[in-house]
C-alpha cells in the first residue's frame, strides 16, 4: 500500500501546484482586462452614493480580494480566499457565491459527460477488438478510417449536424435546454422523461465524438497484446478460446482505463460547445456566459474548477491503474 500512498502524495503535491498556477493565471487575467472592471466597480458604487470604504468592502466580497493596495497584496488576498473556497460572488446570479453557482451548474455537465463517455467506451472497445482481429480485411479498414474520421472531427461539428438532422430537419428530439419547463421539477415521470429525452442528443454527441478514439486505442492495444508471448503460450497449453479471449481483453483494456479517467476530466473542459449548442446550463455554458456578461469572478472560478477536475481525473486514473494492475501495486517488491 505504501507504493500507492507515495504515488498519491506526489500527485497531490503536483496537483496543488497546478491549481496555484491556474489560480494565478485567472487572477492576473482578471486584473489585466481592459478597463479594469475591479476599479470600475468601486467607482460605480461610490457614484451610487456608497462610502469609499463600504464600496471597497463590497468589491472585496464580489471578487474575492481587496481592490486596494499593491498588486501583490491583492494577489495574496485572493489566494488566501481560495483556501476557504471563497471565489467571490457572481454579479449575474444576484450576488450568489461563485462556489454555489458552480455547484448548480456542475450537475448539468457531469451527468451527460459521464453517460456519453461510458457509452462510447463500451461501444468503442467492442468495435476496437473487432477492428484488431479483422485488421487486414475490408471491415477493419472501414472501422479504422471511420474511427480516425470521427476522432478527428470536432465535437461542435457533430453536435451541429445531429441537432440539424434530429431537431430541425426531422424534429424527433429536443435540442433546447435540459428539460421542458412544463414539468414540475421533482421525482415524477413527466419530468424525468423530459430530462432523458433532452439528454439524448448531447449524450450521443459526446459518445460519437469520443468513440473513434476508443476504437483506435483499443485496436492498437489488442494488436500489441496479440503479439505477446503469453497469448501464444496459452494457445500451446490448449487453453479454451473463451479463456484466451478474456486474457486478451483484460490485458488490452488495462491501459485504456487511464485514458478513460483522463478523458472524463478533459471533456468537462470541452463541454462548452455542446452546452452552447444544446443550451445546457452546465459549466461550459456558465464559463461562456460569464465572459460575455463580464462576470469575471465567476469566469475565474469556472476556469479553476474545470482545471481542478482534470487534475483530479489524472489522480484517479493513476490510482485506478495501480489498483487493477498487480505490477504497479507491488511495484516495490519488483525493485527489491
Amino acid at each position, binding site marked *: 500500500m505504501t507504493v500507492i500512498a507515495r504515488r498519491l502524495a506526489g500527485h497531490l503535491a503536483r496537483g496543488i501546484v497546478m491549481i496555484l498556477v491556474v489560480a494565478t493565471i485567472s487572477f492576473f487575467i482578471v486584473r489585466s482586462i481592459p478597463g479594469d472592471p475591479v476599479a470600475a466597480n468601486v467607482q460605480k458604487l461610490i457614484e451610487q452614493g456608497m462610502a469609499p470604504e463600504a464600496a471597497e468592502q463590497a468589491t472585496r466580497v464580489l471578487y474575492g480580494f481587496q481592490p486596494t493596495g499593491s498588486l501583490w497584496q491583492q494577489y495574496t488576498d485572493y489566494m488566501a480566499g481560495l483556501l476557504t473556497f471563497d471565489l467571490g460572488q457572481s454579479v449575474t446570479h444576484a450576488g450568489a457565491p461563485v462556489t454555489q453557482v458552480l455547484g448548480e451548474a456542475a450537475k448539468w455537465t457531469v451527468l451527460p459527460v459521464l453517460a456519453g463517455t461510458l457509452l462510447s467506451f463500451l461501444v468503442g472497445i467492442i468495435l476496437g477488438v473487432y477492428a484488431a482481429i479483422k485488421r487486414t480485411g475490408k471491415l477493419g479498414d472501414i472501422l479504422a478510417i471511420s474511427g480516425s474520421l470521427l476522432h478527428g472531427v470536432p465535437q461542435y461539428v457533430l453536435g451541429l449536424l445531429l441537432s440539424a438532422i434530429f431537431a430541425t430537419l426531422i424534429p424527433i428530439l429536443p435540442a433546447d435546454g435540459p428539460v421542458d419547463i412544463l414539468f414540475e421539477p421533482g421525482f415524477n415521470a413527466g419530468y424525468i422523461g423530459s430530462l432523458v429525452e433532452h439528454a439524448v442528443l448531447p449524450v450521443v454527441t459526446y459518445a460519437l465524438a469520443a468513440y473513434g478514439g476508443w476504437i483506435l486505442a483499443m485496436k492498437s492495444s489488442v494488436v500489441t497484446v496479440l503479439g*505477446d*508471448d*503469453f497469448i*501464444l*503460450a*496459452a*494457445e*500451446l*497449453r*490448449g*487453453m*479454451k*478460446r473463451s*479463456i484466451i479471449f478474456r*486474457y486478451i481483453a*483484460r*490485458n488490452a483494456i*488495462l491501459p485504456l482505463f487511464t485514458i478513460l479517467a483522463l478523458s472524463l476530466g478533459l471533456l468537462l473542459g470541452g463541454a462548452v460547445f455542446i452546452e452552447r449548442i444544446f443550451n445546457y446550463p452546465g459549466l461550459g455554458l456558465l464559463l461562456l456566459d460569464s465572459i460575455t456578461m463580464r462576470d469575471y469572478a465567476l469566469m475565474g472560478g469556472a476556469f479553476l474548477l474545470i482545471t481542478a477536475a482534470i487534475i483530479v481525473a489524472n489522480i484517479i486514473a493513476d490510482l485506478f491503474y495501480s489498483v487493477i*494492475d*498487480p*505490477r504497479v501495486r*507491488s511495484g516495490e*517488491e*519488483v525493485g527489491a
Partner: protein
Amino acid sequence: MTKSAPGVRIDGLTVVYKTPAGELPAVRDVRLTLEPGTITGIVGESGSGKSTLALSLLNAVQPPGRISAGSVEIDGLGDVVGLRNEQLRKARGKHIGYVFQAAQNSLNPLKTVGKQLLDLGRSHGVNDLPGLVREARELLGRMGLDGARVLDSHQHELSGGMRQRVGIMLALVLNAHLVVLDEPTTALDMITQANILKIVREVHAERGLTTLVITHDIGVVAEVADRLAVMYGGRLVEQGPTREVLGAPRHPYTKGLIKAIPRLVGDIDEAQALPGRPPTLATVPAEGCVFRERCPLRMDVCDTVDPEARVDAGAGGPRAVACHAVTVKEHA
C-alpha cells in the same frame, strides 16, 4: 488408458512462410524419430528452423507460416498435422507439454499462477481441481520451490529460474508424456541453467517422458540428450546418438560447430568460429546443399543437388548424415 512415453515419427516435414517474395521454406523435408522414453536435442543457430520444427509438433506454426507437406505421427494421437480445432486444442497441454524460452513471458501478467493453473484445468475438463492444485504443488516442490507461495504469485514476482520451473510444471501437470522445451536455459545464469537441466533429466526419468529439447547451445545437449540432431538452413544435416555425434562428427557443419566451442582447458585460439553467416529465410539456397557457401569441402555437385540423408546403424543407434563429401569419401 494408462499413458506411457509416446514415440514420435516426423516424416517429410516442410514448413513454409508466406513473404512478399513468395512462400519460402523454413523447414524442409525433415525426417526425425523420437524414440519413446528418450531425450532428443535439436541444435542450430537462430534462423535454422529449429523453433519452427518444435511448433510443428503441436501443429502450431504461426501465420504467415504453414505446414505444407509431411506428417508428425505421435503415438496415441495419430498425425497431428491432420488435427483441427478442438481435437488439436485438447492434444496441446494434455498430450504434449510445451515449455517456453525462459526469457519469454509465458504467463498472463495480470493473474496469479494458481488462477492460470485453474484456467488450464477448466480448459481441459479437469473435474478434480483441488487435485490438480495438489499435483502442481507437488511438482513445484519436487523442483525445489515453495509450491503454495508460487501458486499465489504473479509472474513479475518470480525470477527467471522460477518462471522456467513454473513453465515445466504447467507442461506436465495435465500428465502429458511428450514434452517440448524451447531454449529452456537461454537467458538464465550458469547455476540456474545447471539446476534446470538437472530437473529436466530427473523429471524425464521419474515420469517416463519423451522429451525434445531445442537449443543453440551444444553444451545443453551434451548435458541432457540421448540423441542429437543438427539443423542448418531448415535442413536436418546430421543426427545420431549424442556421444557419437559429438565424439566423431561427420558433417562439416557439425565439425565447425564443435570446433567453435572454447574449452576451459587449453588454448583459447583453438576455438575457431565458423566463417560466414547462417542463411536467413530469404537467402537460403533454393536448390543444392544449404551449407555449401560456408563449407570447406564444397564440390560441384553441391550447387545443384541437395544431399540425401544417408542412414547407417551405429553402435548406440542409427546415425544419419546429409553431405555429398562424406558420402563420396566413404565410397572411395
